């Protein structure tokens, strides 16, 4: 992809087609291009439309919602849904989620960098057993119940650290990061060693700063994993004051199925769906904030990782 962008047009052929330096004739736009644009647009529309509707519905009243069955336009713009959710203690869950994510991503990045750096050392004695230890876990595991019993034994039930510490390393991410670390030239590391830097200095002062794209990619993956995680929190965090956002969202979703909260329970104009969607919006905002900044990194990152493997 990058190669294509680098081509510089030098001549224009008589029929209007642009000749590139490498001699490839870029054909004129034909009917297929238009069909292609339309297909891609429809696909992108299907991806984005529901999200837009969620945001709009969260600000709408029930009247608006039933008036516009396709694209909901919040004619009577109201924030009652959000007010209701915060009354129901979503603020607490928001703080829990932020805490779990912040501590979790830091811990994930630390552990993953340590492991990935060790994996790059090609002549490390006992490297094979170390790699085997890691790779076996990609094929076989103990299963959910034994894992739960271990976490219970270690006191991770009803403990916010319980959804952080046991999930320190995602093996896929570690291998991906290793690929980035391997790209740091051997000579750079050797010369640092000759200058007397220790391995810790080399890792944190050299290898990590030189693999920023990789670090950003992995950090995004971990961020999304921690932020969206709901399965283990569902099993481990049973107390209300410890619940994270996705758990609350699930709860509200299920409650609205049983219709425990009557519409207008808060005296406002919010209704079941707008309240659910308000929670969804609160949950999505951080992802939307981080996503555009990291996007250019992760496309490169995943490509590098996948081409290598």
């Amino acid at each position: 992809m990058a190669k294509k962008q680098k081509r510089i047009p030098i001549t224009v052929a008589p029929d209007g087609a642009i000749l590139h330096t490498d001699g490839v004739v870029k054909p004129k736009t034909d009917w297929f291009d238009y069909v292609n644009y339309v297909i891609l647009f429809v696909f992108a529309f299907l991806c984005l439309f529901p999200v837009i509707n969620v945001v709009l519905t969260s600000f709408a009243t029930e009247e608006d919602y039933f008036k516009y069955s396709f694209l909901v336009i919040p004619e009577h713009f109201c924030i009652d849904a959000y007010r209701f959710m915060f009354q129901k203690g979503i603020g607490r869950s928001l703080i829990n989620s932020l805490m779990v994510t912040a501590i979790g991503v830091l811990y994930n990045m630390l552990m993953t960098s340590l492991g990935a750096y060790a994996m790059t050392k090609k002549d490390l004695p006992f490297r094979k057993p170390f790699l085997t230890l890691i790779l076996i876990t990609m094929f076989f595991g103990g299963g959910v119940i034994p894992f739960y019993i271990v976490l219970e034994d270690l006191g991770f039930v009803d403990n916010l650290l319980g959804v952080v510490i046991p999930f320190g390393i995602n093996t896929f991410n570690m291998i991906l990061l290793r690929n980035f670390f391997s790209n740091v030239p051997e000579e750079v590391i050797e010369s640092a060693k000759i200058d007397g830097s220790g391995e810790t200095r080399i890792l944190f002062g050299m290898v990590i700063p030189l693999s920023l794209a990789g670090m950003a990619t992995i950090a995004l993956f971990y961020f999304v994993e921690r932020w969206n995680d709901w399965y283990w929190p569902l099993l481990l965090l049973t107390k209300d004051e410890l619940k994270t956002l996705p758990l609350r969202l699930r709860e509200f979703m299920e409650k609205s199925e049983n219709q425990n909260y009557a519409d207008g329970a808060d005296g406002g104009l919010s209704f079941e769906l707008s309240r659910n969607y308000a929670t969804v919006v609160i949950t999505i905002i951080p992802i939307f904030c981080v996503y555009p900044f990291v996007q250019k990194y992760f496309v490169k990152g995943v490509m590098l990782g996948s081409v290598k493997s």
Partner: protein
Amino acid sequence: MKKTNEIAIPEVVAEARKHKWKRLGKKIWEYKLIYFMMLPVIISYLLFSYYPMYGILLAWKEKLSPSKGILGSKWADPLWHNFTDLFKTQAFLTAIKNTLVISLLKICFMFPAPIVVGLLMNECKAEGYKKGIQTVIYLPNFLSWVIIGTIVKDIFGYDGVISSLREMFGIGSRVDYMENSDMYYFVLIAVSIIKETGWNTIIYMAAISAVSPTLYEAGTIDGCGRFRLMWNVTIPCIMPVIILQFLLAIGNIMNAGFDAVFNTYREDTWEVSDILDTYIYREGILQATNWPFGTAAGLFKSIINFALLMTANTIVKKINGQGIYDLGD
């Protein structure tokens, strides 16, 4: 070790052997900090990946008695009855069937989607437009299935868009598709395609971008149009990636996607939607008395999964000379 013993003089060989251990010791000392760095990683793997494997023993126990621990709990009598019980349970058999059906549907419809979209993206000439499309189609991958589940329930539910359109165009009355067993697979697969296709194109686009431009030049000179180039150059060039992804999908056939199903299924559709993972969750985890039974079900799944993955890995190794998760050195 260096090949110093090519001439193989006995004394030299003996000397080299003696030094081998010394050198190994020296090397380990040289890497002491690396070992120190590896320590937390190894502990983490041992504690959270290997220690739970011991808990598998629970599959042969009657029930877990908290005071005695897993090993001290009473053995099942007869020993294998948790496993034989599995196959006497209709719900479990249904779950196996559903898991396979959903996985196969995914392979048929979800697997080709990113290849098609990747090829289309490659044909897209307007770079700005392409970038915009990419930004949008990668996005759903970052939303959790809890969120998607909430949205899906609204779109396909009784008051949802689909139901409204149905009524508007006079096709029929309002229907709650989420409670309709006949529609469940359609809803699940359609939503999964929208959520995951965009993200999965990345790997194919990476493969496409690695195709040598000279092949396209040669093709153009031979008079190939864009479709011929796509068919005769791009697709054969990305075939190894397609095969790898295909084998991975086969290897993961027992994982029909817990998150997706769990957040979209209803009790009314269990007949078609209950997969192994959701079954284990409901029957095993939620009821502590059933833990041995749940563990047995989980183990059954893990073993088949392991066998499938190993087979896929062997085939990949034969084709590529490198396994799925080999580190290339």
